[in-house]
């Protein structure tokens, strides 16, 4: 995969740097913009950011690995975020996640987000989605689903299975082909 930044994006980021007293402060904004464009943050994106901001790649890499919102791998077209915080946990979000994992052939004990080999689904166990009153909740791409039952979960799986070509989540805006396929 060749790594290239479109000129308008680069111009926007160059302008962004001027907002901060030190270049390094723009790191997070750079990473957000690059993830929005590519769908995830490749090592090349991290190195490009470091070069732009006069840092060493490891400095930027520390940031990328710290925040759960930054991804180092492309997402599936349907991104299922299952809430694991207290209310949802009590209302059975663990079982819900197990169901997704089982149906999709993923490891229900894995620590990090997992994507199916066909690139259709990513299942992630996340912290509070701020809808505790209607637990358990899940976020499918950008749609919130409340009081999710097993039958609804299965429906989501069927819909997700039909979805193809287009890109899940916020990655849709920048590139039609985040995975570089």
């Amino acid at each position, binding site marked *: 995969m060749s790594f290239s930044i479109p000129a308008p994006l680069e111009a926007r980021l160059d302008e962004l740097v001027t907002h901060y007293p030190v270049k390094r402060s723009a790191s997070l904004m750079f990473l957000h913009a690059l993830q929005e464009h590519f769908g995830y943050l490749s*090592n090349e994106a*991290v*190195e490009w950011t470091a070069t732009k901001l006069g*840092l*060493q*790649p*490891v*400095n930027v*890499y*520390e940031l990328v*690995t*710290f925040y759960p919102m930054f991804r180092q791998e492309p997402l599936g077209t349907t991104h299922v975020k299952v809430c694991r915080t207290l209310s949802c946990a009590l209302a059975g979000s663990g079982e819900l996640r197990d169901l997704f994992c089982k149906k999709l052939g993923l490891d229900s004990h894995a*620590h990090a987000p997992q994507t199916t080999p066909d690139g259709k689904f990513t299942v992630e166990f996340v912290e509070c989605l701020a809808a505790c009153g209607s637990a358990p909740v899940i976020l499918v791409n950008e749609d919130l689903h409340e009081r999710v039952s097993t039958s609804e979960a299965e429906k989501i799986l069927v819909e997700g299975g039909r979805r193809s070509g287009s890109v899940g989540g916020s990655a849709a805006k920048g590139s039609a082909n985040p995975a570089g396929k």
Partner: protein
Amino acid sequence: MSATATLPAPAAVPPPPPETVTVKVNGKTVQVPKTMPNWQGKPEPTTMLQAARVAGVEIPHYCYHDKLPVAGNCRMCLVECGTPMMGPDRKPVLNEDGTPKIARSVLPYEPGTPRGVIACATPISPGMEIYADSPATHQMREAVLESLLINHPLDCPICDQAGECKLQEYSVEHGQAESRFVEAKVHKPKAVDLGPRIILDDERCILCTRCIRFTKDIVNDDALGIVNRGSYNTISAFPGKAFDNNYTLNTVDLCPVGALTSKDFRFKMRVWFLKETSSVCTSCGTGCNITVGAREGVIHRFEPRSNDAVNGPWMCDSGRLNYKWIGRADRLREVRIGGRRSNWSTALREISGKLSTAPAGSVAIVASARQTNEELYLLKRLATRLGAITDSIVREGEADGLLVSADRNPNSNGVRLTGMAYTEAGIQLPKIAAGIAAGTIRSLIVFGEDVTAHGLDAGLLAKLDLLVVSDVLPNPTTEAATHLLPGAAPVEKRGTLVNTKGRLQKFNKAVEAPGDARPEVEFLQELVEAVAGPIGTATIEGLFNRMTAEIAGFGGVQWAAVGDTGITLSL
């Protein structure tokens, strides 16, 4: 005020004594300087850890290091302390006996509970009391150690750090006999190939960040960081980027635990079997102080030995790993005459016989700036007696701005001081070559250099009547020798060197030379005495003292005054 006719002459004012602060460490009153050098040597307010050291009390620590910026993250140096109580009138509150009342540090929301402060980063204040031995301090240390050990693997039997591990040492003092931990340990990457010389075990790491700070602030190569911050945080380089500067192995010394290990040394030898000898690195003109670790005549590692006048606590990787040649199988280990094995007495008798009758000006000596001052001094005596032309070989490289010197000879100053070569080494070599070609020079003595690479080719050497060569490894010059005298590597002998900055340093013998090989000083002394008369001393100490008394540049320094870290000469 009226102007006076004569201005008073400025009196020679002695420098004011350093301002001091009085503190109490474990009940003992000590005066400590108000400021002390920080990691860069700049004065900064004295910390509790430094003050305790002045009082002779070492506070346990992992992340703190004299020569690195303070991070304050391991919490091992937590101590309980107290400060004089102040009244509303900003005057100290006194006890009935007139001593100041001390307020012990407590948690603000829980005044009954002692509160620790990190000694490495907390400056002292007048009247402060440091309780480095109080029950509360011990309790804090135990708790911190327990927390550091929660995810630490119990693999000490196979860990390279065992025996020099701070976790082990502090566990003896502050550890608990039984673990309260029943959960599963967090597993992290093992045997990570961090760079060409370093292996990292992330499970053993206690995240003190000494390695990160070292490579960033000392070497200026910001190559390491902590990734996946949280329960899985690990030290790492950027993926695909090797941790590869010329100082990486210092992180192995710095690592207080067994996380960073040297590929060269790991699993080779238990450290407690190593016999440690104070020595000096001879790979360049800096002369970093080292500790040689050897067992049963085999060198296993070099480690830097702290000397603020030379190398601080560091050394470069290339110098550290430059010891393998010492044990090479093709080391010269036989005295040879005309290519056939002989013995020392025959060889020295023949050489001294020929030299004694050599006409003045018919002998040349090429010494090496890798030789010790004592060897060079003996060669100089020989040269003076024979009226010999002398020189040595220049060995230049590139300086790195840190420790590696452009001068790759460890004793260029010794060569100059003893007069074996003058301000510029190498300028006499063409004259020697011309002399041999013209037949005026009939005898050549070469120590530790391959002269065929410096204008005296094998054809020229073949014209000589006598070619005495002493070296440790074979080369074309040793092949051509009429008399070959096997010498000793620096770790196989004693002696002194003068580094590029004029630091006179001595090194000690760690292992025996192989076969018939002997320290050059020994056989040179026999040879010089046979040719030029007795010297009047049989020891290296006596020889050194004789040399420094005779050569003004050494300033009359006595062997005993050189010490383990050397002495600076004014060159």
